[in-house]
Protein backbone atom coordinates (compact mmCIF):
# COMPACT_ATOMS: atom_id res chain seq x y z
CA UNK A 1 0.00 0.00 0.00
CA UNK A 2 1.21 3.50 -0.87
CA UNK A 3 0.20 6.63 0.94
CA UNK A 4 -0.69 9.48 -1.37
CA UNK A 5 -1.86 12.96 -0.51
CA UNK A 6 -5.55 11.97 -0.77
CA UNK A 7 -4.99 9.21 1.81
CA UNK A 8 -3.13 11.65 4.05
CA UNK A 9 -6.05 14.06 3.77
CA UNK A 10 -8.44 11.28 4.82
CA UNK A 11 -6.26 10.27 7.78
CA UNK A 12 -6.04 13.88 8.94
CA UNK A 13 -9.80 14.13 8.84
CA UNK A 14 -10.24 10.91 10.85
CA UNK A 15 -7.67 12.04 13.39
CA UNK A 16 -9.07 15.59 13.47
CA UNK A 17 -5.60 16.91 12.65
CA UNK A 18 -5.08 20.22 10.93
CA UNK A 19 -1.73 19.53 9.26
CA UNK A 20 -0.08 22.65 7.76
CA UNK A 21 0.57 22.39 4.02
CA UNK A 22 4.35 22.85 4.41
CA UNK A 23 4.61 19.81 6.74
CA UNK A 24 2.64 17.46 4.54
CA UNK A 25 5.52 16.41 2.30
CA UNK A 26 7.64 15.40 5.27
CA UNK A 27 4.82 13.49 6.98
CA UNK A 28 3.98 11.74 3.73
CA UNK A 29 7.56 10.56 3.44
CA UNK A 30 7.70 9.35 7.08
CA UNK A 31 4.43 7.44 6.80
CA UNK A 32 5.71 5.87 3.60
CA UNK A 33 8.83 4.63 5.41
CA UNK A 34 6.70 3.06 8.14
CA UNK A 35 4.64 1.22 5.55
CA UNK A 36 7.79 0.07 3.74
CA UNK A 37 8.95 -1.43 7.01
CA UNK A 38 5.61 -3.24 7.37
CA UNK A 39 6.21 -4.62 3.90
CA UNK A 40 9.39 -6.30 5.18
CA UNK A 41 7.33 -8.00 7.90
CA UNK A 42 4.78 -9.06 5.28
CA UNK A 43 7.50 -10.91 3.37
CA UNK A 44 7.96 -13.33 6.27
CA UNK A 45 6.42 -16.74 5.73
CA UNK A 46 4.03 -17.28 8.66
CA UNK A 47 2.18 -20.18 7.03
CA UNK A 48 3.08 -22.68 9.74
CA UNK A 49 3.10 -20.28 12.72
CA UNK A 50 0.17 -20.52 15.16
CA UNK A 51 -1.40 -17.09 15.72
CA UNK A 52 -0.51 -15.66 19.10
CA UNK A 53 -3.55 -15.32 21.31
CA UNK A 54 -4.22 -14.38 24.88
CA UNK A 55 -5.10 -17.36 27.07
CA UNK A 56 -8.85 -17.81 26.78
CA UNK A 57 -10.92 -17.41 29.90
CA UNK A 58 -13.89 -19.47 31.12
CA UNK A 59 -17.13 -17.64 31.93
CA UNK A 60 -16.86 -18.55 35.64
CA UNK A 61 -13.61 -16.64 35.78
CA UNK A 62 -15.21 -13.36 34.69
CA UNK A 63 -16.09 -10.51 37.03
CA UNK A 64 -19.31 -11.02 39.03
CA UNK A 65 -22.04 -8.43 38.37
CA UNK A 66 -21.69 -6.48 41.63
CA UNK A 67 -21.66 -2.69 41.45
CA UNK A 68 -18.77 -0.98 43.20
CA UNK A 69 -17.96 2.63 43.99
CA UNK A 70 -17.33 5.06 41.13
CA UNK A 71 -14.80 7.88 41.24
CA UNK A 72 -15.35 11.11 43.11
CA UNK A 73 -16.68 13.49 40.47
CA UNK A 74 -14.63 16.49 41.56
CA UNK A 75 -11.44 14.41 41.40
CA UNK A 76 -12.47 13.04 37.99
CA UNK A 77 -13.13 16.47 36.53
CA UNK A 78 -9.83 17.87 37.85
CA UNK A 79 -8.25 16.15 34.84
CA UNK A 80 -10.71 17.69 32.41
CA UNK A 81 -9.36 20.72 30.52
CA UNK A 82 -12.80 22.28 30.95
CA UNK A 83 -15.87 21.30 32.95
CA UNK A 84 -19.31 22.78 33.54
CA UNK A 85 -22.26 21.63 35.69
CA UNK A 86 -20.54 18.35 36.53
CA UNK A 87 -19.92 17.55 32.86
CA UNK A 88 -16.85 17.53 30.63
CA UNK A 89 -17.02 20.53 28.33
CA UNK A 90 -15.79 20.17 24.75
CA UNK A 91 -16.10 22.18 21.52
CA UNK A 92 -19.54 22.00 20.00
CA UNK A 93 -20.13 18.63 18.33
CA UNK A 94 -23.92 18.24 18.38
CA UNK A 95 -26.49 20.38 16.66
Amino acid sequence: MKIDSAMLEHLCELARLDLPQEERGEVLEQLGKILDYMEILNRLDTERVEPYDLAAEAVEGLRADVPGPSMDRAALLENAPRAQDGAYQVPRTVE
Partner: protein
Amino acid sequence: MNYEIVCGLEVHVEMNTKSKIFCACSTAFGGEPNTHVCPVCSGQPGALPTLNRAAVEKAARTGLALGCDIAPVTRFDRKNYFYPDLPKAYQISQLYAPICRGGGLALESGRFIRLHEIHMEEDAGKLVHDPFTETTLCDYNRCGVPLMEIVTEPDFRSGEEAADFLERLRTLLDFLGVSDCKMQEGSIRADVNVSVRPVGSEALGVRTEMKNLNSIKAVARAVRAEAERQIELLREGRAVRQETRRWDDNKGASFAMRSKENAQDYRYFPEPDLPPVVLDEAFLSQVRRSMPELPEQKRARYLAEYGLTERDAAILLRSARLCRLLEGLIGRGIPAREAANWTLGEVLRLLGEDGLEPADLEIDEEKLARALRLLAAGRIGRPAARRAVEAVYREGADPELFCREHGLFLEKVGEGDLSAAVAKVLAENADAVEKYRAGSDKVFGFLVGRCMAALRGKADPASVNRALREALKR
Protein backbone atom coordinates in the same frame (compact mmCIF):
# COMPACT_ATOMS: atom_id res chain seq x y z
CA MET B 1 -41.90 0.09 -12.73
CA ASN B 2 -42.90 -1.22 -9.32
CA TYR B 3 -40.39 -1.31 -6.50
CA GLU B 4 -40.12 -3.37 -3.34
CA ILE B 5 -38.53 -2.43 -0.04
CA VAL B 6 -35.50 -4.30 1.27
CA CYS B 7 -34.87 -3.44 4.90
CA GLY B 8 -32.73 -4.72 7.76
CA LEU B 9 -32.55 -3.72 11.41
CA GLU B 10 -29.74 -3.23 13.89
CA VAL B 11 -31.29 -3.21 17.33
CA HIS B 12 -29.24 -1.93 20.26
CA VAL B 13 -30.48 -3.37 23.54
CA GLU B 14 -29.18 -2.16 26.89
CA MET B 15 -28.81 -5.21 29.10
CA ASN B 16 -30.13 -4.82 32.65
CA THR B 17 -26.99 -5.73 34.53
CA LYS B 18 -26.29 -3.94 37.80
CA SER B 19 -22.76 -2.94 36.85
CA LYS B 20 -21.22 -1.82 33.55
CA ILE B 21 -19.79 -4.25 31.01
CA PHE B 22 -16.09 -3.54 31.64
CA CYS B 23 -16.06 -1.95 35.11
CA ALA B 24 -18.02 -2.05 38.38
CA CYS B 25 -19.72 1.36 37.98
CA SER B 26 -23.50 1.32 38.48
CA THR B 27 -25.77 1.20 35.44
CA ALA B 28 -28.66 2.95 37.27
CA PHE B 29 -30.55 5.35 34.99
CA GLY B 30 -30.86 9.04 35.78
CA GLY B 31 -27.97 9.71 38.21
CA GLU B 32 -26.32 13.15 38.44
CA PRO B 33 -23.93 13.62 35.47
CA ASN B 34 -20.61 11.76 35.72
CA THR B 35 -21.34 10.16 39.10
CA HIS B 36 -21.24 6.58 37.70
CA VAL B 37 -17.82 6.97 36.15
CA CYS B 38 -14.40 5.50 36.99
CA PRO B 39 -10.92 5.37 35.40
CA VAL B 40 -12.00 2.47 33.11
CA CYS B 41 -15.15 3.99 31.59
CA SER B 42 -13.64 7.48 31.37
CA GLY B 43 -10.71 6.07 29.40
CA GLN B 44 -7.86 7.00 31.78
CA PRO B 45 -4.45 5.78 30.59
CA GLY B 46 -3.52 2.39 32.01
CA ALA B 47 -6.99 1.44 33.24
CA LEU B 48 -7.91 -2.10 32.19
CA PRO B 49 -11.37 -3.50 31.35
CA THR B 50 -12.75 -6.61 33.10
CA LEU B 51 -15.69 -8.36 31.45
CA ASN B 52 -18.99 -8.65 33.35
CA ARG B 53 -20.12 -12.29 33.54
CA ALA B 54 -23.84 -11.37 33.65
CA ALA B 55 -23.56 -9.54 30.31
CA VAL B 56 -22.20 -12.70 28.66
CA GLU B 57 -24.94 -14.83 30.27
CA LYS B 58 -27.73 -12.49 29.19
CA ALA B 59 -26.44 -12.27 25.61
CA ALA B 60 -26.13 -16.09 25.48
CA ARG B 61 -29.66 -16.52 26.91
CA THR B 62 -31.01 -14.19 24.22
CA GLY B 63 -29.11 -16.07 21.52
CA LEU B 64 -30.43 -19.45 22.66
CA ALA B 65 -34.02 -18.12 22.79
CA LEU B 66 -33.63 -16.82 19.21
CA GLY B 67 -32.20 -20.11 17.94
CA CYS B 68 -28.72 -18.73 17.29
CA ASP B 69 -25.46 -20.65 17.18
CA ILE B 70 -23.36 -19.64 20.17
CA ALA B 71 -19.67 -19.16 19.38
CA PRO B 72 -17.43 -21.69 21.17
CA VAL B 73 -14.95 -18.86 21.69
CA THR B 74 -16.01 -15.21 21.55
CA ARG B 75 -13.72 -12.19 21.32
CA PHE B 76 -13.78 -8.42 21.50
CA ASP B 77 -12.44 -5.93 18.98
CA ARG B 78 -11.69 -2.22 19.02
CA LYS B 79 -13.75 0.05 16.83
CA ASN B 80 -11.84 3.31 16.55
CA TYR B 81 -13.60 6.62 16.18
CA PHE B 82 -13.17 10.17 17.36
CA TYR B 83 -16.27 11.49 18.99
CA PRO B 84 -16.53 12.79 22.53
CA ASP B 85 -19.31 10.35 23.50
CA LEU B 86 -16.54 7.75 24.02
CA PRO B 87 -13.54 9.15 25.87
CA LYS B 88 -11.23 6.23 24.92
CA ALA B 89 -11.61 7.20 21.22
CA TYR B 90 -12.61 3.59 20.56
CA GLN B 91 -15.54 1.39 21.43
CA ILE B 92 -14.96 -2.16 22.62
CA SER B 93 -17.25 -4.18 20.36
CA GLN B 94 -17.22 -7.53 18.55
CA LEU B 95 -16.51 -7.92 14.83
CA TYR B 96 -14.58 -11.12 14.09
CA ALA B 97 -16.08 -13.55 16.63
CA PRO B 98 -19.44 -12.24 17.90
CA ILE B 99 -21.17 -14.26 20.61
CA CYS B 100 -24.13 -15.37 18.40
CA ARG B 101 -24.65 -16.04 14.70
CA GLY B 102 -27.76 -17.12 12.79
CA GLY B 103 -31.16 -17.75 14.35
CA GLY B 104 -34.23 -15.61 13.80
CA LEU B 105 -37.76 -14.73 14.79
CA ALA B 106 -41.13 -15.34 13.11
CA LEU B 107 -43.45 -12.40 12.44
CA GLU B 108 -47.20 -12.36 13.12
CA SER B 109 -47.70 -13.29 9.45
CA GLY B 110 -45.54 -16.39 9.94
CA ARG B 111 -42.68 -14.97 7.83
CA PHE B 112 -39.32 -15.81 9.37
CA ILE B 113 -36.79 -13.01 9.78
CA ARG B 114 -33.22 -14.32 9.88
CA LEU B 115 -30.65 -12.88 12.25
CA HIS B 116 -27.15 -12.17 11.01
CA GLU B 117 -25.55 -11.99 14.45
CA ILE B 118 -25.74 -10.71 18.00
CA HIS B 119 -22.67 -8.99 19.39
CA MET B 120 -21.81 -7.37 22.69
CA GLU B 121 -20.42 -3.86 23.06
CA GLU B 122 -20.32 -0.89 25.39
CA ASP B 123 -22.78 1.99 25.20
CA ALA B 124 -21.53 5.54 24.68
CA GLY B 125 -22.05 8.60 26.87
CA LYS B 126 -24.64 11.31 26.47
CA LEU B 127 -23.83 14.61 24.80
CA VAL B 128 -25.88 17.74 25.43
CA HIS B 129 -25.48 20.97 23.53
CA ASP B 130 -25.28 24.01 25.78
CA PRO B 131 -26.76 26.95 23.84
CA PHE B 132 -25.33 29.61 26.20
CA THR B 133 -21.67 28.69 25.84
CA GLU B 134 -22.01 27.08 22.38
CA THR B 135 -20.19 24.02 23.71
CA THR B 136 -21.04 20.35 24.19
CA LEU B 137 -21.38 18.84 27.67
CA CYS B 138 -20.43 15.16 28.14
CA ASP B 139 -22.00 12.86 30.71
CA TYR B 140 -20.35 9.43 30.83
CA ASN B 141 -22.83 7.67 33.18
CA ARG B 142 -24.15 5.61 30.27
CA CYS B 143 -20.70 5.02 28.83
CA GLY B 144 -19.90 1.33 29.37
CA VAL B 145 -23.47 0.15 29.96
CA PRO B 146 -23.60 -3.29 28.29
CA LEU B 147 -25.32 -3.46 24.91
CA MET B 148 -26.33 -6.32 22.67
CA GLU B 149 -26.56 -5.38 19.03
CA ILE B 150 -29.04 -7.68 17.32
CA VAL B 151 -28.49 -7.50 13.56
CA THR B 152 -31.05 -8.94 11.13
CA GLU B 153 -30.60 -9.99 7.53
CA PRO B 154 -32.30 -7.60 5.06
CA ASP B 155 -35.50 -9.65 5.22
CA PHE B 156 -38.15 -6.98 5.85
CA ARG B 157 -40.32 -5.93 2.92
CA SER B 158 -42.18 -3.11 4.70
CA GLY B 159 -41.89 -0.78 7.66
CA GLU B 160 -44.81 -2.59 9.26
CA GLU B 161 -42.86 -5.86 9.20
CA ALA B 162 -39.90 -4.15 10.86
CA ALA B 163 -42.23 -2.69 13.51
CA ASP B 164 -43.86 -6.08 14.12
CA PHE B 165 -40.42 -7.68 14.52
CA LEU B 166 -39.38 -5.02 17.03
CA GLU B 167 -42.57 -5.48 19.03
CA ARG B 168 -42.06 -9.25 19.17
CA LEU B 169 -38.38 -8.89 19.99
CA ARG B 170 -39.18 -6.40 22.77
CA THR B 171 -41.70 -8.81 24.30
CA LEU B 172 -39.25 -11.70 24.12
CA LEU B 173 -36.44 -9.66 25.73
CA ASP B 174 -38.87 -8.57 28.44
CA PHE B 175 -39.74 -12.20 29.27
CA LEU B 176 -36.09 -13.25 29.08
CA GLY B 177 -35.38 -10.62 31.75
CA VAL B 178 -32.30 -9.37 29.88
CA SER B 179 -33.36 -5.72 29.44
CA ASP B 180 -35.70 -3.14 30.95
CA CYS B 181 -37.04 -2.69 27.41
CA LYS B 182 -37.96 0.97 27.98
CA MET B 183 -37.76 2.61 24.58
CA GLN B 184 -38.47 6.07 26.01
CA GLU B 185 -35.38 5.75 28.26
CA GLY B 186 -33.37 4.53 25.28
CA SER B 187 -32.90 0.96 26.48
CA ILE B 188 -33.88 -0.26 23.00
CA ARG B 189 -32.78 1.75 19.94
CA ALA B 190 -33.01 0.72 16.33
CA ASP B 191 -31.00 1.65 13.23
CA VAL B 192 -32.63 0.73 9.93
CA ASN B 193 -31.04 0.03 6.55
CA VAL B 194 -33.32 0.67 3.62
CA SER B 195 -32.94 0.10 -0.10
CA VAL B 196 -35.43 -0.46 -2.90
CA ARG B 197 -35.29 -2.65 -6.02
CA PRO B 198 -37.59 -3.45 -8.94
CA VAL B 199 -40.05 -6.18 -8.00
CA GLY B 200 -38.67 -9.53 -9.15
CA SER B 201 -35.05 -8.39 -9.03
CA GLU B 202 -32.63 -10.29 -6.81
CA ALA B 203 -29.90 -7.64 -6.76
CA LEU B 204 -29.82 -5.21 -3.85
CA GLY B 205 -30.10 -1.48 -4.43
CA VAL B 206 -27.94 1.19 -2.81
CA ARG B 207 -28.90 1.41 0.84
CA THR B 208 -29.11 4.24 3.32
CA GLU B 209 -28.98 3.96 7.08
CA MET B 210 -31.10 5.82 9.61
CA LYS B 211 -29.92 5.90 13.19
CA ASN B 212 -31.41 6.03 16.64
CA LEU B 213 -35.09 5.50 16.04
CA ASN B 214 -36.55 5.47 19.51
CA SER B 215 -40.07 4.19 19.02
CA ILE B 216 -41.58 1.27 17.15
CA LYS B 217 -43.97 3.58 15.31
CA ALA B 218 -41.06 5.79 14.25
CA VAL B 219 -39.40 2.75 12.65
CA ALA B 220 -42.47 1.99 10.53
CA ARG B 221 -42.79 5.63 9.48
CA ALA B 222 -39.07 6.08 8.75
CA VAL B 223 -38.87 2.98 6.52
CA ARG B 224 -41.95 4.00 4.53
CA ALA B 225 -40.77 7.60 4.04
CA GLU B 226 -37.21 6.58 3.11
CA ALA B 227 -38.43 4.01 0.58
CA GLU B 228 -40.70 6.63 -1.01
CA ARG B 229 -37.80 9.08 -1.22
CA GLN B 230 -35.57 6.49 -2.92
CA ILE B 231 -38.30 5.38 -5.35
CA GLU B 232 -38.90 8.99 -6.34
CA LEU B 233 -35.18 9.51 -7.00
CA LEU B 234 -35.03 6.37 -9.17
CA ARG B 235 -38.18 7.31 -11.10
CA GLU B 236 -36.59 10.68 -11.87
CA GLY B 237 -33.57 8.80 -13.17
CA ARG B 238 -31.37 9.94 -10.27
CA ALA B 239 -29.15 7.76 -8.07
CA VAL B 240 -29.56 6.90 -4.41
CA ARG B 241 -26.44 7.85 -2.44
CA GLN B 242 -25.11 5.52 0.20
CA GLU B 243 -25.21 7.64 3.34
CA THR B 244 -26.33 7.89 6.92
CA ARG B 245 -29.46 9.92 7.43
CA ARG B 246 -31.06 11.37 10.52
CA TRP B 247 -34.78 10.67 10.93
CA ASP B 248 -36.84 13.53 12.31
CA ASP B 249 -40.05 11.94 13.52
CA ASN B 250 -41.79 15.29 14.08
CA LYS B 251 -41.14 16.42 10.50
CA GLY B 252 -41.77 12.91 9.14
CA ALA B 253 -38.64 13.19 6.99
CA SER B 254 -34.98 12.20 7.06
CA PHE B 255 -31.96 14.40 6.38
CA ALA B 256 -28.49 13.46 5.18
CA MET B 257 -25.87 13.86 7.89
CA ARG B 258 -22.86 16.00 7.02
CA SER B 259 -20.21 14.23 5.01
CA LYS B 260 -17.75 14.40 7.94
CA GLU B 261 -20.08 12.26 10.00
CA ASN B 262 -20.19 9.90 7.05
CA ALA B 263 -16.42 9.47 7.01
CA GLN B 264 -16.20 6.01 8.54
CA ASP B 265 -12.99 4.11 8.90
CA TYR B 266 -13.16 2.21 12.13
CA ARG B 267 -9.82 0.37 11.74
CA TYR B 268 -11.07 -2.58 13.77
CA PHE B 269 -8.47 -4.75 15.45
CA PRO B 270 -8.58 -7.43 18.18
CA GLU B 271 -8.91 -5.95 21.67
CA PRO B 272 -5.58 -6.63 23.37
CA ASP B 273 -6.84 -5.89 26.90
CA LEU B 274 -9.49 -8.65 27.03
CA PRO B 275 -8.86 -12.38 26.65
CA PRO B 276 -11.17 -14.47 24.45
CA VAL B 277 -14.01 -16.13 26.38
CA VAL B 278 -14.78 -19.85 26.11
CA LEU B 279 -18.50 -20.70 25.97
CA ASP B 280 -18.41 -24.44 26.52
CA GLU B 281 -21.21 -26.99 26.78
CA ALA B 282 -21.23 -26.77 30.61
CA PHE B 283 -21.86 -23.02 30.38
CA LEU B 284 -24.55 -23.40 27.71
CA SER B 285 -26.46 -26.06 29.63
CA GLN B 286 -26.38 -23.83 32.70
CA VAL B 287 -27.86 -20.99 30.61
CA ARG B 288 -30.50 -23.36 29.23
CA ARG B 289 -31.46 -24.49 32.75
CA SER B 290 -31.90 -20.89 33.94
CA MET B 291 -34.02 -19.99 30.87
CA PRO B 292 -37.33 -18.50 32.07
CA GLU B 293 -40.67 -19.62 30.66
CA LEU B 294 -41.16 -17.89 27.29
CA PRO B 295 -44.36 -16.23 26.00
CA GLU B 296 -45.42 -19.17 23.79
CA GLN B 297 -45.10 -21.67 26.66
CA LYS B 298 -46.94 -19.29 28.98
CA ARG B 299 -49.78 -18.87 26.50
CA ALA B 300 -50.34 -22.62 26.32
CA ARG B 301 -50.28 -22.94 30.10
CA TYR B 302 -52.58 -19.94 30.68
CA LEU B 303 -55.20 -21.46 28.37
CA ALA B 304 -54.94 -25.08 29.53
CA GLU B 305 -54.07 -24.77 33.20
CA TYR B 306 -55.61 -21.41 34.15
CA GLY B 307 -58.58 -21.56 31.77
CA LEU B 308 -58.01 -17.96 30.61
CA THR B 309 -59.51 -16.69 27.36
CA GLU B 310 -57.27 -16.19 24.29
CA ARG B 311 -57.92 -12.46 24.53
CA ASP B 312 -56.95 -12.13 28.21
CA ALA B 313 -53.87 -14.29 27.67
CA ALA B 314 -52.81 -12.13 24.71
CA ILE B 315 -53.02 -8.90 26.73
CA LEU B 316 -51.17 -10.41 29.69
CA LEU B 317 -48.45 -11.77 27.42
CA ARG B 318 -47.49 -8.28 26.24
CA SER B 319 -45.83 -7.69 29.60
CA ALA B 320 -43.66 -9.96 31.73
CA ARG B 321 -44.48 -7.76 34.73
CA LEU B 322 -48.24 -8.40 34.40
CA CYS B 323 -47.61 -12.14 34.05
CA ARG B 324 -45.48 -12.09 37.19
CA LEU B 325 -48.30 -10.36 39.10
CA LEU B 326 -50.87 -12.83 37.79
CA GLU B 327 -48.77 -15.85 38.73
CA GLY B 328 -47.96 -14.29 42.11
CA LEU B 329 -51.67 -13.86 42.90
CA ILE B 330 -52.49 -17.39 41.77
CA GLY B 331 -49.62 -18.69 43.91
CA ARG B 332 -51.25 -16.92 46.85
CA GLY B 333 -54.47 -18.83 46.34
CA ILE B 334 -56.48 -16.37 44.23
CA PRO B 335 -58.46 -18.27 41.54
CA ALA B 336 -56.91 -17.76 38.09
CA ARG B 337 -59.90 -16.03 36.44
CA GLU B 338 -60.28 -13.65 39.36
CA ALA B 339 -56.52 -12.91 39.37
CA ALA B 340 -56.63 -12.21 35.61
CA ASN B 341 -59.72 -9.98 35.94
CA TRP B 342 -58.13 -7.81 38.63
CA THR B 343 -54.78 -7.64 36.84
CA LEU B 344 -56.33 -6.66 33.51
CA GLY B 345 -59.07 -4.53 35.06
CA GLU B 346 -58.23 -2.52 38.13
CA VAL B 347 -54.42 -2.76 37.99
CA LEU B 348 -54.21 -1.69 34.32
CA ARG B 349 -56.75 1.06 34.96
CA LEU B 350 -54.69 2.46 37.86
CA LEU B 351 -51.48 2.32 35.78
CA GLY B 352 -53.24 4.10 32.91
CA GLU B 353 -54.49 6.78 35.28
CA ASP B 354 -50.89 7.45 36.33
CA GLY B 355 -49.60 7.29 32.75
CA LEU B 356 -47.34 4.33 33.63
CA GLU B 357 -46.31 1.25 31.69
CA PRO B 358 -46.92 -2.21 33.18
CA ALA B 359 -43.12 -2.54 33.57
CA ASP B 360 -43.26 0.34 36.06
CA LEU B 361 -45.81 -1.41 38.29
CA GLU B 362 -44.93 -1.45 41.96
CA ILE B 363 -47.44 -3.12 44.22
CA ASP B 364 -47.31 -5.27 47.37
CA GLU B 365 -48.56 -8.57 45.99
CA GLU B 366 -49.30 -10.06 49.40
CA LYS B 367 -51.48 -7.10 50.40
CA LEU B 368 -53.26 -7.19 47.05
CA ALA B 369 -53.97 -10.90 47.53
CA ARG B 370 -55.30 -10.20 51.03
CA ALA B 371 -57.73 -7.59 49.68
CA LEU B 372 -58.97 -10.10 47.08
CA ARG B 373 -59.34 -12.80 49.75
CA LEU B 374 -61.62 -10.48 51.77
CA LEU B 375 -63.81 -10.24 48.68
CA ALA B 376 -63.75 -13.99 48.06
CA ALA B 377 -64.71 -14.65 51.69
CA GLY B 378 -67.73 -12.35 51.28
CA ARG B 379 -66.42 -9.95 53.93
CA ILE B 380 -66.41 -6.98 51.55
CA GLY B 381 -68.34 -6.21 48.37
CA ARG B 382 -66.86 -5.48 44.92
CA PRO B 383 -66.97 -1.68 45.18
CA ALA B 384 -65.21 -1.94 48.53
CA ALA B 385 -62.66 -4.35 47.07
CA ARG B 386 -61.88 -1.84 44.31
CA ARG B 387 -61.28 0.87 46.92
CA ALA B 388 -59.06 -1.47 48.95
CA VAL B 389 -57.04 -2.46 45.87
CA GLU B 390 -56.53 1.19 44.96
CA ALA B 391 -55.38 1.92 48.53
CA VAL B 392 -52.90 -0.98 48.35
CA TYR B 393 -51.60 0.32 45.00
CA ARG B 394 -51.40 3.99 45.98
CA GLU B 395 -50.18 3.88 49.55
CA GLY B 396 -49.39 0.25 50.32
CA ALA B 397 -52.34 0.24 52.74
CA ASP B 398 -53.08 -2.81 54.85
CA PRO B 399 -56.40 -4.04 53.39
CA GLU B 400 -57.97 -5.17 56.70
CA LEU B 401 -57.10 -1.90 58.45
CA PHE B 402 -58.24 0.12 55.43
CA CYS B 403 -61.63 -1.65 55.29
CA ARG B 404 -62.13 -1.24 59.03
CA GLU B 405 -61.19 2.46 58.99
CA HIS B 406 -63.53 3.16 56.11
CA GLY B 407 -66.38 0.97 57.38
CA LEU B 408 -66.25 -1.28 54.31
CA PHE B 409 -66.78 -4.63 56.01
CA LEU B 410 -70.18 -6.12 55.32
CA GLU B 411 -72.27 -6.71 58.39
CA LYS B 412 -74.39 -9.68 59.20
CA VAL B 413 -77.76 -8.13 58.54
CA GLY B 414 -80.52 -9.77 60.57
CA GLU B 415 -83.21 -11.63 58.58
CA GLY B 416 -85.76 -9.16 59.97
CA ASP B 417 -83.87 -6.07 58.69
CA LEU B 418 -83.27 -7.78 55.38
CA SER B 419 -86.91 -8.67 54.71
CA ALA B 420 -88.02 -5.22 55.89
CA ALA B 421 -85.65 -3.55 53.41
CA VAL B 422 -86.73 -5.86 50.58
CA ALA B 423 -90.43 -5.28 51.32
CA LYS B 424 -89.90 -1.52 51.38
CA VAL B 425 -88.04 -1.53 48.03
CA LEU B 426 -90.71 -3.72 46.37
CA ALA B 427 -93.47 -1.43 47.61
CA GLU B 428 -91.67 1.70 46.36
CA ASN B 429 -90.87 0.21 42.95
CA ALA B 430 -94.10 -1.38 41.81
CA ASP B 431 -93.31 -0.64 38.13
CA ALA B 432 -90.02 -2.54 38.25
CA VAL B 433 -91.64 -5.46 40.03
CA GLU B 434 -94.27 -5.64 37.32
CA LYS B 435 -91.61 -5.62 34.58
CA TYR B 436 -89.68 -8.37 36.36
CA ARG B 437 -92.80 -10.53 36.58
CA ALA B 438 -93.46 -9.85 32.89
CA GLY B 439 -90.11 -11.52 32.18
CA SER B 440 -87.53 -8.70 32.25
CA ASP B 441 -84.59 -9.99 34.23
CA LYS B 442 -82.69 -6.73 33.71
CA VAL B 443 -84.63 -4.92 36.43
CA PHE B 444 -83.48 -7.48 38.98
CA GLY B 445 -80.05 -5.80 39.20
CA PHE B 446 -81.74 -2.46 39.68
CA LEU B 447 -83.81 -3.86 42.59
CA VAL B 448 -80.69 -5.39 44.19
CA GLY B 449 -79.07 -1.96 43.97
CA ARG B 450 -82.04 -0.33 45.69
CA CYS B 451 -81.95 -2.94 48.49
CA MET B 452 -78.17 -2.46 48.98
CA ALA B 453 -78.75 1.28 49.19
CA ALA B 454 -81.54 0.78 51.74
CA LEU B 455 -79.10 -1.28 53.80
CA ARG B 456 -76.40 1.41 53.34
CA GLY B 457 -74.20 -0.98 51.32
CA LYS B 458 -73.31 -3.06 54.34
CA ALA B 459 -75.17 -6.23 53.50
CA ASP B 460 -73.63 -9.22 51.81
CA PRO B 461 -74.85 -9.10 48.18
CA ALA B 462 -75.47 -12.89 48.06
CA SER B 463 -77.98 -12.73 50.94
CA VAL B 464 -79.70 -9.73 49.36
CA ASN B 465 -80.00 -11.61 46.09
CA ARG B 466 -81.51 -14.61 47.77
CA ALA B 467 -83.99 -12.62 49.87
CA LEU B 468 -85.07 -10.60 46.85
CA ARG B 469 -85.59 -13.66 44.63
CA GLU B 470 -87.70 -15.28 47.30
CA ALA B 471 -89.81 -12.18 47.87
CA LEU B 472 -90.41 -11.82 44.13
CA LYS B 473 -91.60 -15.42 43.86
CA ARG B 474 -94.42 -14.71 46.26
